[in-house]
């Protein structure tokens, strides 16, 4: 291994570590929203609670879609490390579509709640709900934009070391969002319906 190559790998591992630190601070941001939600989850101000608002099969579908997209994202990174450009594009394309489907379902749920008169101004519970789930949705949107940009970069420049590094960070981001969603699924939806 040449010295240039060693130096490059060292710089890359530092970049990835920096990105990891960002993800951990982002988890603190989500923790604040989770704490707010936990505190306000019974403050419905005479309005509907989660039990009447949420449809579990619908949310289960969302969860399975996001989980599958996380899986296909992992497979895409595996192909990227093996230098299979077409497979990478195909798998990230699949991840992108699954992410888009997830976002579509979430927006459908939001607009449904809003037009039924259960928007974020209805109660403390709904404000906390829209803040928490909406922030996750914004992250997903950012991830999708990033993914679209990376797919065009890979298409034009190929799997260069630079692109590979950025794809690795994108996959970390995407897996991270899936983990956050597991907790939203559990805390907001499952517990919201169970109690």
């Amino acid at each position, binding site marked *: *291994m040449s010295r240039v190559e*060693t130096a490059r790998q060292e710089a890359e591992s530092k970049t990835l*570590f920096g990105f*990891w*630190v960002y993800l*951990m*601070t982002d*988890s*603190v941001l989500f*923790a*604040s929203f*989770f*704490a*707010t939600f*936990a*505190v306000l989850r*019974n*403050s*419905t*101000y*005479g309005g509907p*609670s989660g039990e009447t608002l949420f449809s*579990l099969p619908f949310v*289960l579908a969302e*969860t*399975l879609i996001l*989980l*599958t997209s*996380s*899986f296909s994202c*992992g*497979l895409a*990174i*595996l192909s990227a*490390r*093996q230098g299979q450009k077409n497979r990478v594009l195909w798998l990230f394309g699949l991840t992108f579509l699954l992410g888009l489907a997830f976002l579509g379902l979430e927006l459908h749920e939001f607009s449904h709640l809003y037009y039924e008169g259960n928007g974020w101004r209805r109660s403390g519970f709904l404000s906390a709900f829209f803040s928490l789930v909406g922030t996750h949705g914004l992250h997903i949107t950012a991830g999708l934009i990033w993914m679209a940009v990376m797919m065009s970069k890979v298409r034009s420049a190929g799997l260069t070391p630079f692109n590979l590094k950025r794809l*690795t960070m994108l996959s*970390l981001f995407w*897996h*991270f969002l*899936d*983990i956050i969603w*597991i*907790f939203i*699924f*559990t*805390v907001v939806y*499952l*517990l919201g*319906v*169970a*109690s």
Partner: protein
Amino acid sequence: MKPAPDKDTKSGTLHSYWTGYLLSLSLTLVAFSVVKHHVDSGHVSPSDNYVLVILAVLAITQLFVQLVFFLHLDRESKPRWNAVVLAFAAVVVVILVAGSIWIISNLNYHHAGPGHTHGGHALIPQQNDQQIINDEGISP
């Protein structure tokens, strides 16, 4: 210098992604069916407290499954800085969430009446006022 470790070990293998995917899938479905059973049985079959414990265990198990099989935290090399930062973030998250719940439920009890903390569901303000007046023995 290490003898060129194959790049697969750094980002996991096909096998590890499949394991992670199938484990996450089953943990999600188990959590879902536990809640479905709980609701179908009229909130008795696994009792409220058990559901809480079961769901917490399932979610935290899935957190570790994904950290290991998708984020490859176990494959990190020597000083394990990623794990150190993760542990620190976990401490902050626990203090933030548990502390908020603790402090605010205490505040709720003293401000908005015991109905808030014991009954589970919040009352409208007028009922709250009435409950505080009753509980504290305040004469109108």
